[in-house]
């Protein structure tokens, strides 16, 4: 046994050394609170500097606009070099948490709005409040309240949807109703604007042997969108906002929510969704729709370019039908907002950069590249589905119809909701217990959060 002891003694020595030098994790993350007394906006006078920007604008039209804007910014201010690091949404999320605590953290980052990302960054003091820049550049004049709320937190990170502005997005997005015009006219269906019309349309499509709603939920997150689409028919907008932002004052077990869950389960039973949707991936599902399978597809506006390429003039887009609430509600929000890190040594230049890539001129460029700009949407000169998307966005923002993604609510809500919607869809969870499970997480979070 002597041989063992030597080995363990060695390990123990290493361990002792490590523990001796250690204190609580994260305590060496420096936080310098050098709030600027005044914001400088003249980038040309800031001297030579390099801005590191992390974005997830990797796909076609998104990549095109950001590359063009970066170049314009560098041309306008030759003293600034932009070091762009881009990666897909998933990869960005995985690495940002680690890199943002570095004292060499990037200056500008695109951070996911929800509590599990931006909320925690704000709470840990890793992002700067953009209020000084908001004042200097007058963003509040151009960005409606409902859009700013999606990137606003109180300073302690506890309240979401109010407080300081921490990020500014470029693009808007809506989970609306894509439809196949050819199929609608073939089966004599009008574009539904009310829930009654929509359910009648679904029944008609089903009878004609079509798949009424294209849906693929193997990746789990599409369930958030499709469930939200149904919920918007029954639950008042402010209730959905409280639920989605994880604020007190609403309940998952209300009669309206029960109607929503029952309707979702009912549509499954009636075969309104794609058969075996829990086993079908998100991409195959919309690709099937693009190939002409299915009549409706409740999904995000980010599919515009891809769907249009395949369906052309047969593609249509509408806001979700108005249901029992009598008011338009649509799940949506913005693309990931651009934020400034606390560690940035060039915060003023970063502020000017964010202002530049969200300016009215930038919005034109964003639209031209086939994206939905978050402000200054001008549907003049656009046609077809793009025009329908632009008009829907304008209408939704003017009507205050936007409601947040439900998974923003609590740090655990994404996992819980996606799993629960899959179970509700497979029938292994009844609407009642489905809602009870969501309510449990929501109330325990709001109670402990005090928000």
């Amino acid at each position, binding site marked *: 046994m002597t*041989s063992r002891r030597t080995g363990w003694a060695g390990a123990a020595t290493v361990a002792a050394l490590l523990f001796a030098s250690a204190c609580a994790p994260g305590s060496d993350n420096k936080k310098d609170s050098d709030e600027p007394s005044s914001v400088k906006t003249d980038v040309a006078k800031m001297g030579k500097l390099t801005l590191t920007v*992390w974005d997830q604008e*990797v796909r076609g039209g998104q990549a095109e606009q950001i590359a063009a804007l970066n170049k314009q910014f560098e041309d306008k201010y030759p003293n600034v070099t932009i070091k762009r690091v881009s990666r*897909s949404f998933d*990869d960005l999320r995985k690495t940002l948490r*680690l890199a943002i605590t570095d004292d060499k953290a*990037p200056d500008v980052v695109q951070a996911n709005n929800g509590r599990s990302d931006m909320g925690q960054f704000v709470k840990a003091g890793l992002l700067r409040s953009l209020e000084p820049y908001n004042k200097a550049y007058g963003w509040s004049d151009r960005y409606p309240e409902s859009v700013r709320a999606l990137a606003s937190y109180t300073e302690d990170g506890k309240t979401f949807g109010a407080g300081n502005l921490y990020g500014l997005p470029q693009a808007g997005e809506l989970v609306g109703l894509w439809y196949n015009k050819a199929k609608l006219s073939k089966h004599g269906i009008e574009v539904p604007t009310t829930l009654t019309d929509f359910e009648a349309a679904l029944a008609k499509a089903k009878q004609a042997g079509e798949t009424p709603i294209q849906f693929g939920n193997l990746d789990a997150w599409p369930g958030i969108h499709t469930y939200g689409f149904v919920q918007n028919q029954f639950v008042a907008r402010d209730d959905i906002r409280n639920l989605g932002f994880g604020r007190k004052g609403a309940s998952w077990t209300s009669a309206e929510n029960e109607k929503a869950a029952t309707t979702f389960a009912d549509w499954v039973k009636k075969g309104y969704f794609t058969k075996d949707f829990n086993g079908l991936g998100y*991409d195959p599902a919309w690709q099937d729709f693009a190939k002409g399978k299915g009549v409706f597809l409740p999904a995000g506006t980010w599919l515009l370019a891809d769907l249009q*390429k*395949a369906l052309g003039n047969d593609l249509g887009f509408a806001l979700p039908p108005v249901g029992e609430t009598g008011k338009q509600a649509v799940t949506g929000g913005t693309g990931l907002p651009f934020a400034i890190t606390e560690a940035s040594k060039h915060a003023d230049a970063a502020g000017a950069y964010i202002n530049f890539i969200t300016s009215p001129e930038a919005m034109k460029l964003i639209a031209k590249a086939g994206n939905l700009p978050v402000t200054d949407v001008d549907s003049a000169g656009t046609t077809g589905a793009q025009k329908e998307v632009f008009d829907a966005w304008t209408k939704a923002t003017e009507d205050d119809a936007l409601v947040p993604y439900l998974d923003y609510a609590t740090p655990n809500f994404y996992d819980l909701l996606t799993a629960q919607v899959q179970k509700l869809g497979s029938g292994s969870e009844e609407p009642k217990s489905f809602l009870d499970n969501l309510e449990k997480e929501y109330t325990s979070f709001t109670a402990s959060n005090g928000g």
Partner: protein
Amino acid sequence: MTSRLERITTYALLIAASAFALYPMGLILFSALQPDSVGGTGAFHFDNFETAWRVGHFGRYMANSILVAVVVVVVSATLSSLAGYAFGTMKFRGSSALFYLLLLGLMVPSEAIVIPLYYDLRGLGLTDTYAALILPQIAQSLAFGVFWMRQYFRSVPPEIVEAARMDGAGHGRVLWSILLPMGRPAIITMVLLVLMWTWNEFLLPLVMLPTNEGLRTAPLGLSFFKGQYTEGTSLLAAGAVLVALPIVVFYIFAQRHFIRGMLEGSVKG
């Protein structure tokens, strides 16, 4: 000597098992040759490979992968042979404790250490460098390497070593001119396995390269490619084929030695 029926059954089973093994790979190859956009037509789109190579920057990423894999394999094979020699042929205090300590490397999921490792390397200023990709992977490969080489050295009949030592050969000579040449198949097997694991590693490069895009490895490139092109599966499949191809070719090329490595005393009989 075996009955005809038995032989036929054996072949039938082997062919079925081979088909099962090949089918998913055939499926990827098949998708890679489909038209990329929805509604495209025609068969055998070999241009998908060219497009994926160009658009996905696979040239650059492959070069990084090759560099990382070669350094990891050479260094870890050398260190494993030295350590395996000691564990396999010598008796010393603490040998079994130290051996199990190394074996930990085979058992700890990399998800467990990748986060502390990131903070450790960042403290040393090593993130975003080749060192951050290479050193941890050498450490992880050592666990298997030492395990494997120890098995090989234990399988060598002690008389061979003893005879050489009687003739006055030192430890180093015995290792270098007798045991290592004899163990070539075992070493090639180890090299192939470590090369495979290093080539396919994904999580570590993802976390260790927060900003330096220039150092991305091929599987990482594939993931970024996946995030960028969602409109069709063909280009993605073509990218997947490109990433898998070098290692498959190397395997087919080295498989004779590899199999001999398995046959000749990699495991104590």
